[in-house]
């Protein structure tokens, strides 16, 4: 900009390492993280499907893995990501549309999404 008189100098003050996490920040970062997990899951899922349909032995191997501890935890984590991303996505769309835009509503809707995700996570853990 034409108004800048000097190049900034001096150390940058601390930011992410010291900032306290509010519920909104958790909800937003959680949205990015769950979205990333879901996108990465798609190729893994296709790869598993392809492996399953290769031969009977492959089917048995994938079947065993999916029903092992690690397999179940993976499915559980992807399930949580999906439900969280879905619910928080609706929350974001609502806020974009101007619903629930007050300071208190923004906090409350984030908490509702978290509580709902935890409930579904417990339910999913029981079902698996």
């Amino acid at each position, binding site marked *: 900009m034409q108004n800048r008189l000097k190049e900034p100098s*001096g150390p940058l003050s601390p*930011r992410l390492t*010291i900032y306290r996490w509010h519920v909104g*920040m958790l909800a937003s970062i959680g949205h990015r993280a769950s979205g990333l997990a879901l996108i990465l899951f798609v190729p893994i899922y296709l790869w598993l499907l392809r492996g399953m349909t290769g031969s009977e032995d492959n089917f048995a191997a994938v079947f065993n893995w999916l029903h092992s501890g690690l397999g179940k935890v993976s499915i559980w984590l992807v399930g949580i990501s999906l439900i969280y991303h879905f619910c928080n996505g609706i929350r974001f769309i609502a*806020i974009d549309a*101007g619903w629930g835009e007050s300071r208190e509503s923004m906090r409350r809707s984030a908490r509702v999404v978290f509580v709902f995700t935890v409930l579904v996570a417990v339910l999913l853990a029981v079902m698996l």
Partner: protein
Amino acid sequence: MAEIIKLSVFRFDPEKDDKPFMQTYEVPLLKSGMKLLDALNYIKWEIDGTLTYRRSCGEGVCGSDGLNINGVNGLACITPIEGLKQPIHVRPLPSMHVIRDLVVDMDHFFDQYRQIKPWLQSESPMPEHERLQSPEDRERLDGSYECILCGCCTTSCPSWWWNGDRFLGPAALLQANRWIVDSRDEATGERLDQLEDAFRLYRCHQIMNCMEACPKELNPTAAIGHIRRKLLSRKS
């Protein structure tokens, strides 16, 4: 024997220190309702005159003493000591170039404010008296005009931390919205043109740290949402 308050304060002197460090101080609780600024003043006047910080009005109007207090941005002059976990960690506003101790370089912040042209732009000829506004139109400025440009919101925003060179940040965008909703302003189109950009406006990811940090309890996230809807309705 007065109760003792423990503080841990960010220090950096460019002429002496290679890098910043935290220094602890102990200050007596001087009165009930004592504010953080009172404690900083006590340190400066009674313990260590080299501690450097900005302050002016002392009552949350001038916006000089925006600081990071126990991890959240706020104004030292209106933050009560009571209720703060001790030792109270006092740091400069995040992601800013430190000039000395708690004083940061605000040039870029005010430059971004200047970019949104924060003044009334009107083509219509000057009326004989003032430009009138109905009480309803005036009411639409509530929640925007109270901003004191302390920088607490903008420097709390992770999107601005990473992309502050291009993303205008919550304070400038709240102010942009203030002129967009002003019934007397006639440059809404140009204002929206300037904001319609993947970075300048759309880097906001609704993290909402801005509204949590705002000492005037305003809502920059909602203001940004309003600008987005304004842009959308212009298209359809």
